[in-house]
């Protein structure tokens, strides 16, 4: 079985995000970019499936600017076998919407015929939480979202999902799309020898046009603002003072 893992290049989660003064968006020039943390978890799970003998090949795919190949090299260094880069934008500030990403991924799936697609639950830049579900819809496949446990048994998979009420376990028919949540696993770091080896692994370069997908956004960005700042608070000296302040504020 082949595993397809879509990985997105996003602003590193430690970087303090700066909204551009003209309201046109977030400044992404010269900031550290990394693999979306959820996608690291997806890559890790794919590699574990291979190590457990349940998968024989792990293919990573990224859609975006040319620099996304760095993200793919990270996936290869972690242990993916090969990578596909679909260039769909020439400026990092131009993000591709989940619907367009899903349409491109659907074509990649048609070509690659994976038994499972492991995606992140959400990308930490746009926080849409949508791509996996959209891909599943386009393919008419089953979906297991927000997975904290995955167990593939023949032509079905058991997926335990993190939901508002706690945990839900469902059984999905293979092939399937699983989107991964934080507690599925702890991703490994790539070792130096593996980083070197990754440079020689195959990385195919395509464009959105190769797949005949129109990536024109459906959502127009009107403006991007800083959120309202909170008024400065005070430091209290004791629990007694805290109780007093809370009573004054009518909070208790």
């Amino acid at each position, binding site marked *: 079985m082949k595993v397809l893992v879509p990985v997105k290049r996003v*602003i590193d989660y430690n970087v*303090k*995000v700066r*909204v551009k003064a003209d309201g046109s968006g*977030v400044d992404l020039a010269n900031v550290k970019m990394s693999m979306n943390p959820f996608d690291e978890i997806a890559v890790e799970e794919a590699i574990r499936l291979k190590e457990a003998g349940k998968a024989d090949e792990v293919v990573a795919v990224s859609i975006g600017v040319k620099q996304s190949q760095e993200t793919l090299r990270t996936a290869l260094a972690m242990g993916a076998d090969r990578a596909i880069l679909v260039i769909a934008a020439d400026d990092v500030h131009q993000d591709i919407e*989940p*619907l367009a990403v*899903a349409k491109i991924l659907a074509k990649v799936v048609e070509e690659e015929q994976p038994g499972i697609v492991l995606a992140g*639950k*959400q990308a*930490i*830049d*746009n*926080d849409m939480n949508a791509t*996996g579900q*959209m*891909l*599943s*819809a*386009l393919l008419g496949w*089953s*979906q297991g*979202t*927000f997975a*904290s446990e995955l167990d593939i048994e023949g032509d079905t998979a058991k997926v335990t999902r*993190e939901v*508002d*009420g*706690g*945990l*839900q*376990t*469902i*059984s*999905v*028919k293979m092939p399937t799309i699983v989107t991964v949540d934080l*507690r599925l696993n702890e991703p490994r770091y790539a070792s130096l020898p593996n980083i070197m080896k990754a440079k020689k692994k195959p990385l195919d370069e395509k464009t959105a046009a190769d797949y005949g997908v129109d990536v024109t*956004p*459906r*959502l*127009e*960005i*009107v*403006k991007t*603002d*800083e*959120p309202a700042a*909170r008024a400065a*608070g*005070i*430091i*209290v000296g004791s*629990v*007694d003072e*805290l*109780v007093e*302040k*809370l009573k004054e504020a009518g*909070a*208790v």
Partner: protein
Amino acid sequence: MAVLLLAEVNNGELAMDATAKAVNAAKALGDITILAAGGSAAAAGEAAAKIDGVSKVLVAEDASLGHRLAESTATLIVGLADGYEHIVAPATTDAKNVMPRVAALLDVMVISDASGVVDGSTFERPIYAGNAIQTVKSNDAKKVITLRTASFDAAGEGGAAPVETVSVPGSDGLSSWVEDKVAASDRPELTSAGVVVSGGRGVGSEEDFKLIEGLADKLGAAVGASRAAVDSGYAPNDWQVGQTGKVVAPDLYVAVGISGAIQHLAGMKDSKIIVAINKDEEAPIFQVADFGLVADLFQAVPELTEKLG
């Protein structure tokens, strides 16, 4: 212009708070029809009919809709989509599972977690863990939207909308439910509670989380946690507050032993009053706190619990 609103139904019961907040958020968009779908949903439909501003309620009951499996629920909604310009739902994990699937089947983009409705096609939504608010205008014929409940007040009750039953396409056999692991609790639900007390890694263990729970019970509060506390096994996953957990905006939020990483702040910084208890005066949580107490939580929390008597 008409709105189809997917009610939040859990095991046959309407989640009134989440649904009523979505109704209030969507009322400017047009006439609201509520869809109550589930293995059993009639009672939820009756309850939803009482929400102010609802014109009609559709009830869809079928085993295939039980446990809100995404595939069957999305097929049902797409079958009903004609005649509605907006298809909306409160941004719960259920809706986040279903609505992007609905959008893709309709060949439109989904607008996730909208925190503001500007007009019929323009919406605000937080991006980058709430570090920026983006205003987006949809050029799609239909708008599929999930609404961040923490950003809206609940619509009142007192209506009496007519309730109709709709037929259900049935199961496509793609997925089936196995089990739920839900911890029963007498505490208020996290996303609708007026007071939330959250613990972080600083609490140190599952046992010591009892301190947090004790303070919460004294305040009639829900209990929350940071990701680090959940990852370390001190607290269950459904208590996680933050960018990738639940978003809350209670009247009072008490953060104990939480450093205040942006991913955590994303889930609670719209709370009315924030209290932080942390032994490190440099902790970023103090930057958003109205009242900060630099103290060891193992002394401060029991003392606070006692003195709130």
